[in-house]
C-alpha cells in the first residue's frame, strides 16, 4: 500500500512529462491532464504523510552492481523527505494550474508542461532518494529542467544565454558536489545515507571537514549562494510560473535540503558550519540590499529568494536544521505566490517588468494585490503570519548559539526585507500611475482560487511550528530564558513594523529615488556580473582563443594534416605497383613466398 503510494507519487509527474512530450506538436492543450497527474502525486504524498509511522527505505531495483560497489535505486521515507515531497508537489500542483492560464497563448504549451513534469519528477527523486547517488541524479535532473525552462523562449538569444549561465555556474558547483561524493565513497565505501552516517563518526576530522566543504560547495551552486549567485537573477528570463516553482520554492532550496539531509556530517564539521553561517548572513544582507533598489519586478523577488536562502543557511550553520527546513517549508508558499502574483501583474501590464512604470493597479487587480500583500507581510515576518514563526526561530537559534552579531545582522536583514517587499507592493499597486493605464483584467477565478490556497498557507503554515519540530526530530536546544525571548520577539516585531510604516510613508507618493553612489553600485549588483564577465569570461575567452588559434590550428591541425598527406603520398607511390598484370602479381606472390622460405631457412641455420 505504502509502496504503491510511493510509486504513484514518484512516477505520475514522469507520466505527465512523457505524455505531454508525445503531444508537443498537437494543438491539444494538456495542461489540465498534467495538473491532474501532479494532483495525484500530491495526494499520494499527503497520504504517505498521513499513514507515516516509522521511517523506512524501499528499494525499487538494483541500480549499480560493479565489483564491490552495490547500490539500489531506493526511496527513503522519513520526516525530512515527507516535508519536502508534500511541499514540492503542492507548489507544483498550483503552479501547474496557474500555468494553464499563464501559458495559454503560448503555442508550445505542451513542451512547457513536459519540462515542468520532468522537473517535478527529478525533484521528487532528489528528495526521496535514500542514497547520495540518487540525490545527485535528481540534482542534475532539476539542473537540466531549470536550463530547459529558463531558455524556454529560446527565440530570444538573451534567454538562451541566461539558461547557459545558470547551467554552467551549476556545473562549477556540481564538481564540488561530485568530489564530496567521491570522498564519501572513498572513506566509507558506500553512498547509502544510513551506512554513510553510521561510518562518519569513525572518520578523522580533516576528512569530515573536507566532505562537508565539498558538499557545501555543491549546495552553494544550487542555492545560488555568493559567489555563485549571479545566475539566479538572470534565471528570471524564464516564464514566471517557472520562477515560482523552480527558482523560489523548490530547486534552489535543494542546497538547504542537502545540508539538512546530511546534518550528521555537518554536525561534526564545526569549521564548515562557521563558514556556512557567515556566508548565509552575508548573502541575506547582500541580496536584500540589491533588492532594495532594483526596479525589475521579478528581480526583486529573486533577490528576496536569495536573501531568504541565506537565512536558511544561517539556520543550518548554527545547527538548527529543523528550523532551516521549516523556513524552507513556509518560504516555499509565500515566495511562490509572490511570483505567481508577479505573473498576474505582468499579464495585466503586457509583460512590463519595470515597477517604476506601474502604479495604481490595486483597483484592477484587487485579489492579486491582497494575496501579494499577505505574502509580503508573511515574508517580512509580521506577527502571526507563517514567515514570522520561521524567521523568528532562525533569529532565536542564532542568538542562542551565541552569535549575537549575527542576530543583529539578521534583524537588519529582516528590516530590509520589509522595506523592499512593501516598496514593491506600494509602487505596483498604490502609487498613482503616471501613465494612463488602459483597463486591465485580473486573472480568471480558478487561478485566483489556486493562488488563494498558497495565500492561506502563507498565513497559516507557521502555526504548526511545534508539531513540526516534533515531527522532524533533529534535536536542537534553544537556551534562551523566557523574558529574553519575549524581548527579542518584541524587538523584531517593532523593527519590522517601524520599517513598514516608514516604507508606507515614503512611497505614498511617487518619489524620485536618490541616485547616490551607493545606489548605483547596488543597481549594478555590486558590479559582480561585470567583474565576472571581465575576469573569468574574458580570461576564458583569451585562453580559448589561444588554444584554438595556436594549439589547435597551428600545431594539432598541421600535424594531422601532414600525417594524412604523408599517408596519401605513400599511397600514390604504392599505387604504381598495381599494374593490373596478373603474371606480375603472381611474381610478387612467388617472390614473397621465396622470401618467407629464405627467412625460415636462415632462422633454422642460425
Amino acid at each position, binding site marked *: 500500500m505504502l509502496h504503491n503510494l510511493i510509486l504513484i507519487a514518484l512516477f505520475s509527474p514522469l507520466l505527465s512529462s512523457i505524455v505531454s512530450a508525445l503531444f508537443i506538436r498537437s494543438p491539444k492543450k494538456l495542461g489540465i491532464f498534467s495538473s491532474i497527474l501532479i494532483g495525484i502525486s500530491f495526494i499520494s504524498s499527503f497520504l504517505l504523510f498521513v499513514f507515516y509511522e516509522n521511517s523506512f527505505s524501499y528499494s525499487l531495483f538494483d541500480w549499480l552492481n560493479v565489483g564491490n560497489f552495490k547500490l539500489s535505486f531506493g526511496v527513503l521515507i522519513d520526516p525530512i523527505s515527507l516535508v519536502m515531497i508534500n511541499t514540492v508537489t503542492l507548489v507544483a500542483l498550483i503552479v501547474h494550474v496557474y500555468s494553464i492560464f499563464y501559458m495559454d497563448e503560448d503555442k508550445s504549451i505542451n513542451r512547457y508542461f513536459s519540462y515542468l513534469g520532468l522537473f517535478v519528477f527529478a525533484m521528487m527523486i532528489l528528495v526521496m532518494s535514500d542514497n547520495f547517488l540518487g540525490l545527485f541524479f535528481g540534482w542534475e535532473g532539476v539542473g537540466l529542467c531549470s536550463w530547459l525552462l529558463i531558455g524556454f523562449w529560446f527565440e530570444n538569444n538573451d534567454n538562451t544565454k541566461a539558461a547557459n549561465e545558470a547551467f554552467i555556474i551549476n556545473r562549477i558547483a556540481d564538481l564540488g558536489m561530485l568530489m564530496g561524493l567521491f570522498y564519501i565513497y572513498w572513506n566509507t565505501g558506500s553512498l547509502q545515507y544510513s551506512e554513510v552516517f553510521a561510518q562518519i563518526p569513525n572518520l578523522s576530522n580533516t576528512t569530515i571537514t573536507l566532505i562537508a566543504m565539498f558538499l557545501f560547495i555543491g549546495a552553494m551552486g544550487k542555492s545560488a549562494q555568493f559567489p555563485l549567485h549571479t545566475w539566479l537573477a538572470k534565471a528570471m528570463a524564464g516564464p514566471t510560473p517557472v520562477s515560482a516553482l523552480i527558482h523560489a520554492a523548490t530547486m534552489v532550496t535543494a542546497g538547504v535540503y542537502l545540508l539538512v539531509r546530511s546534518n550528521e556530517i555537518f554536525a561534526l564539521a564545526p569549521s564548515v558550519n562557521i563558514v556556512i553561517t557567515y556566508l548565509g548572513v552575508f548573502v541575506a544582507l547582500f541580496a536584500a540590499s540589491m533588492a532594495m533598489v532594483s526596479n525589475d519586478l521579478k528581480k526583486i523577488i529573486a533577490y528576496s529568494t536569495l536573501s531568504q536562502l541565506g537565512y536558511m543557511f544561517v539556520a543550518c550553520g548554527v545547527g538548527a536544521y529543523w528550523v532551516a527546513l521549516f523556513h524552507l517549508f513556509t518560504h516555499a508558499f509565500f515566495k511562490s505566490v509572490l511570483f505567481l502574483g508577479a505573473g498576474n501583474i505582468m499579464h495585466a501590464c503586457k509583460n512590463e517588468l519595470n515597477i517604476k512604470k506601474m502604479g495604481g493597479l490595486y483597483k484592477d487587480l484587487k485579489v492579486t494585490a491582497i494575496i501579494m500583500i499577505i505574502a509580503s507581510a508573511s515574508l517580512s515576518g509580521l506577527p502571526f503570519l507563517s514567515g514570522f514563526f520561521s524567521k523568528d526561530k532562525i533569529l532565536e537559534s542564532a542568538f542562542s548559539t551565541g552569535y549575537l552579531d549575527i542576530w543583529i545582522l539578521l534583524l537588519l536583514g529582516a528590516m530590509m526585507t520589509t522595506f523592499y517587499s512593501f516598496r514593491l507592493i506600494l509602487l505596483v499597486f498604490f502609487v498613482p500611475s503616471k501613465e494612463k493605464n488602459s483597463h486591465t483584467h485580473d486573472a480568471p477565478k480558478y487561478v485566483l482560487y489556486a493562488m488563494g490556497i498558497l495565500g492561506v498557507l502563507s498565513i497559516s503554515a507557521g502555526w504548526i511550528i511545534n508539531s513540526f519540530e516534533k515531527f522532524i526530530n533533529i534535536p536542537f536546544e534553544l537556551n534562551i530564558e523566557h523574558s529574553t525571548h519575549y524581548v527579542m520577539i518584541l524587538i523584531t516585531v517593532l523593527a519590522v513594523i517601524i520599517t513598514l510604516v516608514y516604507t508606507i510613508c515614503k512611497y505614498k507618493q511617487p518619489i524620485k529615488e536618490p541616485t547616490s553612489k551607493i545606489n548605483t553600485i547596488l543597481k549594478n549588483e555590486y558590479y559582480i556580473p561585470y567583474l565576472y564577465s571581465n575576469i573569468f569570461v574574458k580570461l576564458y575567452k583569451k585562453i580559448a582563443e589561444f588554444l584554438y588559434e595556436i594549439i589547435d590550428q597551428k600545431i594539432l591541425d598541421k600535424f594531422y594534416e601532414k600525417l594524412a598527406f604523408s599517408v596519401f603520398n605513400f599511397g600514390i607511390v*604504392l*599505387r*604504381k*605497383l*598495381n*599494374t*593490373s*598484370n*596478373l*603474371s606480375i602479381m*603472381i*611474381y610478387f606472390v*612467388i617472390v614473397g613466398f621465396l622470401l618467407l622460405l629464405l627467412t625460415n631457412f636462415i632462422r633454422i641455420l642460425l
Partner: protein
Amino acid sequence: MIGLEHYLILSVIIFCIGLLGLLRRKNLLMLFFSTEIMLNAINLAFVSVSSYLGDITGQTVAFFVIAIAASEVAIGIALILLWFKKTRTIDLDSLKYIKG
C-alpha cells in the same frame, strides 16, 4: 633402388615446371594446365609420403585434391568460355581492369 627422396625430387621438379608455366604463359588455358601440373606434383608428394609412412591419410588427401581440381577446372573453363565469347581472346593481358 628408388626411394622416397627420388619421388620428392621428381615432385619438386614437376612443381617448378608448373610454376614456370604459370609465370611465363599468357594464354589462360595454359595457365590452367600449369596449375593442374602443380597440383599433381603435390599429389605425387602426398602419395609417396603416405606410402613411405604406411599411413592412408596422404592418399585420401590426394583424392580430395583431384576432386577439387576437377571442379575448379570445370568452373574455370566455364569462365574462360564466357570471357572468350565476350572478348574473342583468352590472352591474360586482356584482363586489365584495375590499374593504379
